[in-house]
């Protein structure tokens, strides 16, 4: 600076000329090593450009001296993780579903493995908490279409329902009305009868006797004489409080008229068997699993 400022008498250091409340600011020189550190940081930054991918080029980017890529770094991390989990995964692969549940350590591991797999693959339909999506079964409750034991759940996950798989669970709720198997008033009567089976209120003028007859002729073969359902055929229990599509009369009429045939994919085509076991254990321990 051309202008010379007052020199502080105590320290012998020049001041910057800035004064606040009578206190002037010393213009203390920086230590020279600080300046060297500053240069070193610049050199360090240049080093970064050379070592790591840094500069966008016309159709590519500078790759860095060692070809480091974040994607490969993740691959290495994942390989480490797999190696770390290896012994437990092998135990999981060797154990039966019953053995997994009996071993607390294996059970915890299976649940931990199953949770993200469920969120990734099952959540889109069943919901992230496996509950409350119309048309997709709530997996927390005690009502199972095809069975809630460990092996039942694993079978359903592996081969799916009405899926493109030789061992898939197969059944059909016919479109009784649309396909003219029964008449409109018969559909309405049987709908009233089904509601009465579950203890739901029905209209005073409903012809329950006729509904009962239609039910016996058409529905009982799958749903059972008392409407308790049949897990061999995936026919839901019509007497309990859980309704996949809804319990109001219009919905029931619609189901009988148009039929239903929800599809679940066969996950063995996508997930390995160990993962499916972990998933089955996870679903089983959500709360509804049957012993």
């Amino acid at each position, binding site marked *: 600076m051309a202008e010379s400022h007052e020199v502080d008498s105590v*320290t012998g250091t020049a001041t910057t000329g800035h004064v606040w409340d009578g206190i002037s600011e010393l213009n203390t*020189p920086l230590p020279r090593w600080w300046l060297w550190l500053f240069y070193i940081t610049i050199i360090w930054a240049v080093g970064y450009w050379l070592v790591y991918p840094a500069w966008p080029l016309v159709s590519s980017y500078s790759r860095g001296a060692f070809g480091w890529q974040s994607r490969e770094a993740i691959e290495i991390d994942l390989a480490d993780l797999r190696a770390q989990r290896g012994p437990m995964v092998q135990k999981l692969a060797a154990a039966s579903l019953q053995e997994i549940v009996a071993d607390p350590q294996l059970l915890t591991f299976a649940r931990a493995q199953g949770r993200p797999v469920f969120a990734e693959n099952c959540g889109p339909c069943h919901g*992230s908490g496996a*509950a409350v999506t119309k048309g997709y079964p709530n997996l927390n409750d005690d009502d199972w279409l095809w069975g809630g034991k460990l092996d039942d759940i694993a079978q359903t996950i592996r081969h799916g329902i009405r899926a493109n798989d030789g061992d898939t669970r197969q059944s059909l709720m016919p479109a009784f009305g649309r396909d003219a198997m029964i008449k409109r008033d018969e559909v309405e009567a049987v709908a009233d009868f089904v509601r009465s089976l579950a203890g739901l209120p029905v209209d005073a003028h409903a012809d329950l006797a006729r509904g009962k007859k239609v039910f016996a002729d058409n529905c009982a073969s799958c749903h059972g004489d008392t409407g308790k359902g049949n897990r061999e055929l995936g026919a839901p229990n019509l007497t309990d409080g859980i309704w996949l599509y809804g319990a109001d009369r219009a919905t029931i009429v619609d189901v009988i008229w148009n039929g239903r045939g929800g599809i679940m994919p066969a996950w063995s085509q996508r997930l390995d068997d160990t993962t499916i076991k972990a998933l089955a254990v996870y679903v089983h321990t*959500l*709360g509804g699993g049957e012993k």
Partner: protein
Amino acid sequence: MTPSTIVRPPARDPPKGAGTEPELFEIAKSAEMVRLHPELDEEPEDDTPLYMARRKIYPQRVHGTYRKIKWLVLFVTLGIYYCLPFVRWDRGPDAPSQAVLIDFPGRRFYFFFVEIWPQEIYYLTGLLIIAAMVLFLMNAVAGRVWCGYLCPQTVWTDLFQTIERWIEGDRREHFLRDRSGWSVERAARAGAKHFVWLMIAWWTGGAWVLYFSDAPTLVRDLATLHAPFVAYLWIGILTLTTYTFAGHMREQVCLYMCPWPRIQAALIDEYALNVTYRYDRGEPRGSIKKSAVLRAKGLPSGDCIECLQCVYVCPTGVDIRQGPNLGCIQCGLCIDACDAVMAKIGRPARLIAYDTDINIQHRQRGENPVYKIVRPRTALYATIITIVGGAMLYVLATRHSEAISVIHDRNPIFVRLSDGAVRNGYTIRIINKRLESREFILSVAGVAGALVDFADLPPREDGRLVIEVGPDQTREVRVLVTDYALTPPASAPIAFYLYDMVTGERAYANDNFRGPEGG
């Protein structure tokens, strides 16, 4: 006295008194005294430079009371640091047997009979509060005693300077050797010094990593090159920082890098003891002969004979006679140096002493000095230390060795079962801080007649909900509570009780049971 808060580089103006006695200063300069002391070299001041080269300091060896205290502190602190990882403490078969261990993989901190879990990190908060308050209290009582005696930067620098004096000679010898041009001997001495420095720095880094793993095992692994890379990395980092900071940066760390000098300058008050040059006794300063002449004439004459010993021994290159100084770490070595001189010239000791400017003014007025250790601020600091320390001890002494925490399922909040019952799911985490496996009985209160069951544990034959938690472990278990009442309440408080089957110790956690009408 107003404490000086300004950043002050090593003095560049001649010492006080030189102005009144210019010929003395000239004599001193011609006798190489001042050239031996480069801090006092004059420099043009008209054009302030942006950067300043460091002036190398050659602190002179000194003997005396404060030097002895510093040796003692150095041996005790470094002794603790280097040896503590090897101290054993038997905790049984399920826990490490190292007295002080920070176990990151196991997420535990062991300190003799205390074991801290990550959830108890608030102890660290308490320790930090106590540490800050102790620092403030030290500062209020006797200035920067932390800096002068206890700071790792000071302790290691002291050690490195001692080694430097052993190998390259004391102040004068080392100074002249540095200016004598390179020779085989000089190179050999410098090489030996840096080798010893690096060995100490290496062992400093080595001791550091031992706090994070079983020390004897890690030493063996390190020696056989089987230790994890991160151990070698940290040893390397700490070797480098110790060698750089204690060997090369030294007082630069205190002057430019450390925030504490600035904070303490703002915290200090007029009653805090500081290393103080008693100018009431020392001035006017002058040579022994001149003083004798002045005294013979009955004229005022000070005890300071301008021998500059106080400056020569200073590890940060400060002239204490200029008053309170940012560079002064209050180690008291100048007191020892001055006392030695005073003894030789037959004057009373403690021309430089831990004292206050207030006392100097008292003495100048013929009054008695005042030492006020108990002041509002020292009382406040001591009270805070007592309260926080007491609270920590209380919490530590009464803490439970078991705990339970509950997380209510968020999705779904409740589940309707086929018979209309309402079920809530909870994830319960049980903590067992004992170093033995324990069995707990879980019970639930709040929802009358509710069925409680583990979702992922096999049922016990006796129907009780028993959970075994391993030694020093936590266990998570899902609990299902099902209410079969036909009209469940909207939401009801629910409590989970844990009961140790052997010791009868209890823990509980509160939550809510949510139903369809629940908000």
